[in-house]
């Protein structure tokens, strides 16, 4: 595989008694309560630029810029500095944990295997739960509640973005056209399920749908992420060598609790991107006639037949469309490693099962597990379909609390298949992935954290005894170079010895 990946997950935050809650203050306090090892407030914001568009231009402003300016003005009234409000923490696994306006956000380090991404995502959940516990100890009568979901049921959505770092050889035109039907239909196995239909800023009606996020997309392509969200986000900010790499920033996915759903989401998307990189032709890729309409109609289809129309008018199902992508992967990725062959097998199986009996996937997928569980409860309690308790149960499915969260209740019962053994996923304790530049970042943070002056995804600046040393990570994707660098860092007696790394320079 030529692709590395990671996720950025915004978390919902509340209290058991949420009246008059300042979610921004709560989010700041939560992030600042972290005791996980790392370096705090060294993130360099000066090189971030979300205005660059992959279509080849730079937009003057984003739709959210006005809101951002207003939030900034409100935040200026607080007694904290900008850096204190953000409270960025770079963890020893190479992850980033910070306050993104009103949501704690955990960004995994760069991963190159599916086991790694599941390990890193799980580690993030553990960090979040530890923070909630610490903050709750300060006010035990009003516990902090964290939700790994994407909505408040009143039209306010927050994301779980995926990032796929890939060679820039695939043109944006081909990528952006080829991926739309895939994104419209992959929700049938990676949707997290939702009791309620919404629009921007409002609840519409009760009713189950398979996706949390489908209600919030109204454009095919754009650089925006907070308003009029697009199916394909055009942000062009690789955090790597711009000439060689593209970071495909995917904003349309749901936050998954199910490890299997997450495995399929990242795994199938990576495979489709790899097939396109390997030359899968655009003319063989499915084209949906009205993708924005299809996105919502598939999510809300209570028959779970998921019919939509291709350009030309032919009726097809979301499963048919997914099978075309699956076939392209089989043809254009013929020499996959066993881990990736496993994704192909799991993908094919889940499509077959969704066709035969959608709820038979409740041992794997978030949406079907949630639906089966809550409908069982609804029947046992004789609740009407519009009872608001159902939305509270939906919310509780996403609660990051092993004793109370409904997802964790199902896990405890052994109700979920796992893509790897539970021990493999959970036993690594905030280690960075071994094969990516995140290992270099994580090792430097762990060993020379107090010397770190500034950091970003693609560089680390450290104070030496007489000079500053910059580690340029923009081209650090060769496993052999990474392995050698880790040896140098492990052997280093002082931070000055980092200067001998091949990607170091004195500044």
């Amino acid at each position, binding site marked *: 595989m030529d692709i590395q990946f990671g996720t950025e997950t*915004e978390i*919902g935050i*509340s209290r058991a008694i*949420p009246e008059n*809650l300042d979610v*921004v203050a709560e989010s700041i306090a939560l992030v600042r309560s972290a005791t996980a090892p790392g370096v705090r407030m060294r993130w360099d914001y000066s090189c971030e630029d979300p205005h660059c568009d992959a279509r080849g231009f730079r937009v003057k402003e984003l739709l959210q810029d006005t*809101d951002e300016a207003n939030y900034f003005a409100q935040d200026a009234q607080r007694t904290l500095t900008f850096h204190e409000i953000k409270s960025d923490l770079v963890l*020893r696994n190479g992850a980033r944990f910070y306050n*993104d*306006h*009103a*949501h704690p956000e955990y960004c995994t380090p760069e991963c190159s*295997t599916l*086991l*790694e991404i599941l390990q890193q995502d799980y580690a993030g959940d553990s960090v979040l739960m530890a923070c909630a516990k610490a903050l709750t100890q300060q006010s035990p009568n009003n516990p902090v509640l964290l939700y790994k979901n994407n909505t*408040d049921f009143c039209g*306010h*959505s*927050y994301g779980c973005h995926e990032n796929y770092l890939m060679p820039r050889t695939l043109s944006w035109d081909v990528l952006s056209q080829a991926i739309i039907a895939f994104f419209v239909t992959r929700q049938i196995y990676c949707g997290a399920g939702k009791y309620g239909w919404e629009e921007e800023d409002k609840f519409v009606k009760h009713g189950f749908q398979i996706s949390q996020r489908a209600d919030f997309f109204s454009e095919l392509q754009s650089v925006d*992420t907070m*308003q009029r969200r697009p199916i394909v986000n055009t942000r062009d900010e690789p955090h790597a060598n711009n000439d060689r790499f593209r970071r495909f920033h995917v*904003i349309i996915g749901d936050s998954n609790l199910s490890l299997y759903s997450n495995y399929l989401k990242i795994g199938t998307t990576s495979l489709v991107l790899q097939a396109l990189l390997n030359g899968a032709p655009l003319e063989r890729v499915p084209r949906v006639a009205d993708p924005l309409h299809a996105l919502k109609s598939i999510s809300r289809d209570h028959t779970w037949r998921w019919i939509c129309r291709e350009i030309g008018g032919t009726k097809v199902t979301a499963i048919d469309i997914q099978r075309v992508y699956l076939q392209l992967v089989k043809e254009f990725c013929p020499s996959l490693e*066993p*881990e990736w062959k*496993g*994704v192909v*097998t799991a993908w094919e*199986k889940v499509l077959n099962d969704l066709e035969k009996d959608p709820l038979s996937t409740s*041992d794997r997928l978030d949406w079907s597990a949630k639906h089966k569980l809550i409908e*069982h409860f609804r029947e046992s309690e004789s609740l009407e379909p519009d*009872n*608001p308790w159902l*939305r*509270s*149960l939906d*919310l*509780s499915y996403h609660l990051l609390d092993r004793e*109370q969260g*409904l997802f964790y*209740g199902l896990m*405890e*019962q*052994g109700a979920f*298949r*796992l*893509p*790897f*053994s539970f021990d*493999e996923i959970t036993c*690594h*304790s*905030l*280690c*960075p*992935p*071994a094969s990516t530049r995140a*290992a270099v970042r*994580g090792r430097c943070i762990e060993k*020379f*954290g107090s010397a770190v002056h500034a950091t970003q995804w693609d560089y680390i600046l450290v104070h030496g005894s007489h000079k500053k040393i910059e580690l340029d990570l923009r081209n650090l994707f060769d496993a052999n170079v990474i392995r050698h660098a880790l040896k140098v860092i492990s052997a280093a007696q002082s931070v000055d010895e980092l200067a001998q790394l091949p990607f170091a320079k004195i500044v």
Partner: protein
Amino acid sequence: MPDRIQKPQPTVPGPGGGGGDGPRSPQVEKPNTDELLKRMRKVDPDQAKRYRQRTGQ
């Protein structure tokens, strides 16, 4: 920063799971739904009504 007492090694994917045959089946054949229903009854029916967030990304 000195080396910490715990020195985790970068992870190396193990041989189990994720092989060419796809993921494994659940370990438990029949979930105990009574325990889950108890957990669900403890959920405040109005929790979602009172849950408000700011729009994120």
